[in-house]
């Protein structure tokens, strides 16, 4: 499983596989913290003084997220219609994830959320959070699970998820591959 921090996607060009044109640029990642789901991306126009595009890109319309570009099949993936989609438009009320204190269900503090981790597969989705723990130089990663609870202040992790915490993203990719399949299917 290939993983990327959500903020590293910001600023990437959105390129059509059909035309080879850069049709937009990722402005921001739209993420529903409550459902732990990647909704899509808001966009900027390409070019030096270009502003915001009204159209948005839904996660389901993405063909691939790579290191250098977000790929879509055709320009029509960028959808003016979807701009009216409540999910993508109205996230003002969504609970923030970044900055939440992470607690395990048994009451131990694991750290603070500093990044959302996305998988870059066919339909990109959120798979985990990156945590910073006081007094430690490195960061750790926890898998997203359906049993997580989020208040906007605290993110509470089921105890069984804590055994999948990894300190490097490569190990985390492998760990969630084994964690997600049973846990998420049961939860959805």
């Amino acid at each position, binding site marked *: 499983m*290939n*993983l*990327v*921090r959500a*903020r*590293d996607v910001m600023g*990437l*060009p959105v*390129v*059509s*596989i*059909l*035309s*080879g*044109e*850069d049709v937009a640029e990722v402005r921001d990642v739209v993420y529903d913290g409550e459902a732990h789901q990647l909704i899509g991306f808001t966009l900027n126009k390409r070019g030096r003084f270009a502003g915001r595009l009204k159209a948005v890109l839904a996660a389901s319309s993405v*063909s*691939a*997220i*790579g*290191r*250098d*570009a*977000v*790929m879509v099949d055709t320009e029509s993936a960028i959808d003016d219609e979807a701009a009216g989609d409540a999910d993508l438009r109205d996230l003002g009320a969504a609970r923030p994830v970044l900055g939440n204190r992470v607690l395990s269900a048994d009451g131990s503090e694991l750290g603070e959320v500093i990044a959302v981790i996305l998988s*870059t597969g066919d339909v990109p989705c959120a798979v985990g959070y990156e945590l910073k723990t006081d007094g430690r130089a490195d960061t750790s990663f926890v898998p997203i699970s359906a049993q997580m609870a989020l208040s906007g202040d605290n993110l509470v992790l089921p105890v069984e998820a804590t055994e999948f915490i990894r300190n*490097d*993203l*490569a190990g985390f*990719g492998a760990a969630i591959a084994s964690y997600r399949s049973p846990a998420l299917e049961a939860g959805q």
Partner: protein
Amino acid sequence: MSVELFSHVDGRSVVATDSAETIGSVKGFVLDRRGCNIEAIHIDGHGKRAIVLPWSAVSSFGADAVMASSSDDPTTITNDHEKSAVKGDVTLVGTRVLTTGGLDIGTVDDVEFETDSGAVIRVVTARGPLEPDRFRSLGSYALVVDPVSESETLTPRRLPTKG
């Protein structure tokens, strides 16, 4: 079958077979939307007044001169596709190569093509040659290609630790 490089044919004179007049020189190429075939040769002029010779009017792409069937064959550009090519917005040489997985795998340094058919045989990049059966599209931003090896398919697992 004879093969040439874009860099070798640049500036080669274009001569009309019927009048024996030099009608231009090779300035660039208009390629199809996948980047697999030459559609026309840019032989004179700039911008809206650029003159192109359709590949179908090339009677022989010779080692010393490109022979056009008739001095009437060259035309001014007629559409946006040709315009973007003669302006240099959509060209193979110098264009970044992007896989369908969103990975930049280099820049096109040169193009090998077949002088009878105008078919691109391969493009040369710093990382090695790429064959047109992998090409998906040629646009102003990139030549989009299918990935072949794992290193081209995957984003690196080890992320930079910036920010």
